[in-house]
């Protein structure tokens, strides 16, 4: 083992019960997940795939957003991995549009892990696809800590959720590449304060590009597609 060595007992000098010996470990608790995510990322890059990891609270409209994306951008021949706690309703909804969809039922696990994505990807025909969408479990806490091998992390938040969502779940928002504000068609009816949300997003996650959309009406989706297209253009070309 090269990642571990015995270090001096001097580190224990401030303790009066220095009975043991210290072994340096220095290993990430999620190192195994990270290793698999790295393998996933290389695999997807070799296929020329752009991979989205889509996260949100339950009920933000992830599935509606993805259904709209799959419908409008059938040219991308997207494949979808759907994580859900117990049902396959979301996968069924997305299959209706003709997309290649596999379901991961996590059985109560609150997030997807890289190994689950790897296994699900084995069940998809990825050759010829340009986009792989991973719909994570509806949860803004745990999925933040698990790299799946995605190229873009997309955090969805809807106008009904409160403008302080980024302040409540900063860990998730800090790791976002894109933030999509959904249900903008009902913003006025629910008294949504766009400026407050944008201010909070700018404070918590200045690195993220923010979009306002309605998955239901399609409003704002073209700006998202334009951004996605720019990203697709930079995705690695398939090998061979």
């Amino acid at each position, binding site marked *: 083992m090269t990642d*571990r060595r015995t270090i001096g007992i001097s580190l*224990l000098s401030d303790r009066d019960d220095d009975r043991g010996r210290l*072994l340096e470990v220095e290993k990430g*608790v*999620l190192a195994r997940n990270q290793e698999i995510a790295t393998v996933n990322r290389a695999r997807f890059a070799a296929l020329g795939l752009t991979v989205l990891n889509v996260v949100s609270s339950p009920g933000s409209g992830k599935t509606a957003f993805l259904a709209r994306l799959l419908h409008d951008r059938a040219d991308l021949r997207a494949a979808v991995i759907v994580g859900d706690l117990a049902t396959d309703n979301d996968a069924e909804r997305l299959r209706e549009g003709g997309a290649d969809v596999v379901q991961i039922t996590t059985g109560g696990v609150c997030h997807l892990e890289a190994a689950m994505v790897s296994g699900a990807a084995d069940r998809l025909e990825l050759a010829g696809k340009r986009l792989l969408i991973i719909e994570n479990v509806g949860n803004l806490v*745990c999925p933040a800590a698990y790299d799946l091998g995605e190229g873009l992390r997309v955090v969805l938040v809807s106008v009904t959720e409160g403008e302080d969502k980024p302040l409540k779940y900063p*860990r998730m928002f*800090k790791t976002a590449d894109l933030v999509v504000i959904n249900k903008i068609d009902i913003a006025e009816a629910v008294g949504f304060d766009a400026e407050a949300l944008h201010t909070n997003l700018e*404070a918590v996650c200045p690195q993220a590009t923010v979009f306002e959309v309605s998955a239901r009406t399609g409003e704002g989706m073209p700006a998202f597609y334009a951004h996605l297209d720019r990203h697709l253009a930079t995705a690695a070309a398939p090998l061979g």
Partner: protein
Amino acid sequence: MHELSIARSVVDLAVQAASDDRAERILRVGVRVGAFAGVDAGALDTAFSVARLGTPAEAAELEIEAVPLVCHCESCAEDFEVDDRHGIARCPRCGVTSGDIRSGMELEVSFVEVV
């Protein structure tokens, strides 16, 4: 709430390190938890007290080293510590917010003390 699975991984890493060193028991496990690791220290401690049962770490203490969030300000070319529970990383020199995280996301087993 995934602290139990995190705690199990912590115990696994500690037990592996102890076994590699042919140690019998683990007295203490040191973990480094970033302010934005997405793990609650209290919940991790509770989960650890369960996850250690039936392992060589059965009586081990968990020692949590908290690592603050540190971000980098591009215009000032300086790192700065973020003391804000929402993680709003405003540079103390120029006031610009930064999304360039340098530390505070880590979740690592740093050491084990064994006999």
